[in-house]
């Protein structure tokens, strides 16, 4: 089926969302009815609402689903049931017909795909987050040509503006609670629709990282790229998740894991500009080397933020309570107005997180194949959600730059755990 029906006019989108709102409302009514009778189960209620909202968002695709996904990045913002539903979401636009791909080419280059390339696949060989990839050849070279769905940037923008208040209401979050986070994520999402920026970042990062061992990048072709089309070499390789699930020997796993670790270490701690989407589909394995194929989502951090954020890796943080307290206040995780009990809870939770998340750095060599490590990380997240007073803390805490920095590290840890890789590490700085 080339196209599922996507409610496209604004009116039908409103109608669909109102439908979800009504369903959530009904579930609440049922819940309160049950409670009046002595029953009632808040977790069950979240569960029901989450799938009602998710159904609606996935039918709308585009902006609303992206918004839902971005709210699920920081899992503490959402009740777990919502976060689980949305974490599964994999945004995919409906496939573009070949005539529309040809039209996009003519708009961007004044020529059709077959006037530029010797061969060009009429249907997409794979989906990309907001477009699709075609395979093309020219003079014996093979290319991956990513074509964006028309109007995706514009509709993302208007959807976000329009959907945000409705979505926040459905999920029971207040705008000012999450406003800075939403602004940050919105900006990253809009950047993803700008292929000209992606081209520039891809070329820049692959040049800067060229000296890393076992990390490879396809060449990018600016002459066949534009705001809507991005052309690079075609790389034949095994996606990282399939490699991880294969019977690859430990030595290969370690080599790929080390390449991944070095890639992120160099970007975050030396370049302060990094690939912020450690999704397994963005990496291919060929000849025991790691190929990085998608720079759609990148994040730049300032040296000052880097210093304040990564100083928590300093082992003395775990012993020296005053230092920890000062550093947390410095990042605005703690505020002078917080009650002593709340301070205590936050400090305890942060010390536990630092102890676990910093472990790979402290140990010098770390085995991500140890399944208990990831379980401990998940447990910390669960603990922090259970503490209801943490969720009630007024305003969002911590720097917005932390969202994608943490996402990059969390993603990196997950990939390494999946690879069951042993990695040599060192303290940054």
């Amino acid at each position: 089926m080339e196209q599922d029906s996507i409610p496209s006019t604004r009116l039908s989108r409103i109608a669909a969302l109102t439908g979800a709102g009504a369903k959530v409302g009904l579930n609440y009514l049922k819940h309160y009815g049950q409670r009046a009778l002595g029953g009632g189960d808040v977790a069950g209620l979240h569960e029901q609402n989450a799938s009602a909202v998710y159904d609606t968002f996935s039918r709308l695709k585009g902006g609303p689903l992206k918004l839902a996904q971005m709210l699920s990045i920081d899992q503490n913002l959402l009740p777990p049931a919502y976060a689980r539903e949305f974490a599964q979401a994999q945004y995919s636009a409906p496939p573009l017909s070949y005539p529309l791909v040809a039209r996009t080419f003519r708009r961007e280059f004044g020529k059709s795909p077959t006037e530029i390339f010797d061969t060009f696949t009429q249907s997409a060989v794979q989906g990309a987050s907001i477009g699709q990839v075609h395979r093309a050849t020219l003079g014996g070279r093979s290319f991956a040509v990513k074509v964006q769905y028309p109007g995706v940037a514009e509709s993302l923008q208007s959807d976000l503006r329009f959907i945000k208040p409705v979505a926040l209401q459905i999920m029971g979050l207040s705008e000012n609670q999450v406003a800075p986070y939403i602004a940050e994520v919105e900006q990253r999402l809009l950047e993803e629709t700008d292929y000209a920026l992606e081209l520039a970042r891809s070329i820049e990062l692959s040049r800067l990282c060229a000296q890393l061992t076992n990390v490879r990048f396809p060449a990018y072709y600016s002459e066949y790229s534009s705001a809507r089309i991005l052309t690079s070499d075609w790389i034949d390789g095994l996606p990282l998740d399939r490699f991880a699930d294969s019977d690859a020997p430990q030595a290969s796993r370690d080599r790929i894991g080390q390449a991944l670790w070095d890639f992120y270490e160099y970007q975050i701690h030396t370049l302060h500009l990094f690939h912020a989407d450690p999704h397994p589909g963005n990496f291919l394995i060929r000849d025991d080397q790691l190929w990085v194929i998608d720079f759609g989502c990148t994040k730049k951090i300032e040296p000052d933020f880097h210093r304040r954020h990564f100083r928590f890796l300093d082992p003395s943080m775990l012993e020296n309570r005053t230092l920890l307290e000062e550093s947390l206040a410095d990042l605005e995780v703690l505020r002078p107005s917080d009650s002593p009990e709340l301070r205590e809870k936050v400090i305890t939770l942060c010390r536990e997180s630092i102890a676990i998340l910093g472990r790979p750095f402290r140990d010098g060599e770390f085995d991500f194949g140890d399944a208990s490590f990831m379980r401990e990380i998940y447990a910390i997240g669960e603990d922090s959600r259970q503490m209801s007073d943490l969720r009630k803390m007024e305003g969002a805490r911590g720097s917005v730059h932390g969202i994608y920095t943490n996402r990059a590290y969390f993603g990196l840890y997950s990939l390494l755990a999946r690879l069951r890789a042993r990695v040599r590490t060192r303290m940054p700085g």
Partner: protein
Amino acid sequence: MDEEIRPPRQRLLDAYLRQLRETGHRPDSVWKFTSDLGLSEREFFENFSSLDVLESEVWRAQIDHVIQSVESGSEWTGFTARQRLLTFLFAWAEHSLDLRSVLLTRFGPLNPLQSPPWLDGFNRRFREFAKSIIAHGRSTGEIAGRGVLTRIYPDAFLTAFRTVIQFHLRDTSPSFERTDAFIEKTTALSFDLLHTQAIDSAFDLARFLVPSRDR
């Protein structure tokens, strides 16, 4: 080219389009129109029997130009019926950027089902093109044959095309990108309907609801 050596027919057609663009409305009378051009009424009526017939030819020529340009494309013969219709609609959207002001004047006030006499040539040429696409779709299996009912397909395509034109005229997105998406979606819907039993069911329902005189 020197105005005077071109045939009166072509001069009348060009002048008519120019007048629509300049004034936003049709000439008040044939006499006024021809005398402004330095032609006689006789020269007008030797070529066209009315202003409607002349305008009909103006629009037929526009659509014919787009059809010929897509049909001569190198990939055309390999395209499916759906790809052919899409290619035509995108080409029309592109071509109509040169005609936008006059399209707004003439098509703007219409709804997709209204068909004034000055659209006769346009409709005829499109139906002819639609028939060729449908025949191709029948041969590739994209379009199911339904006997007598198949005859309404060209009109269904025409309505879809006119809807695209109206959408395009109201589109305010940058580079009219929403029109591209609209073309994709309406064409997908049209072909899905022609491929499945939906049209049969609709026809069956209509036959049931419309009272029969024989009974």
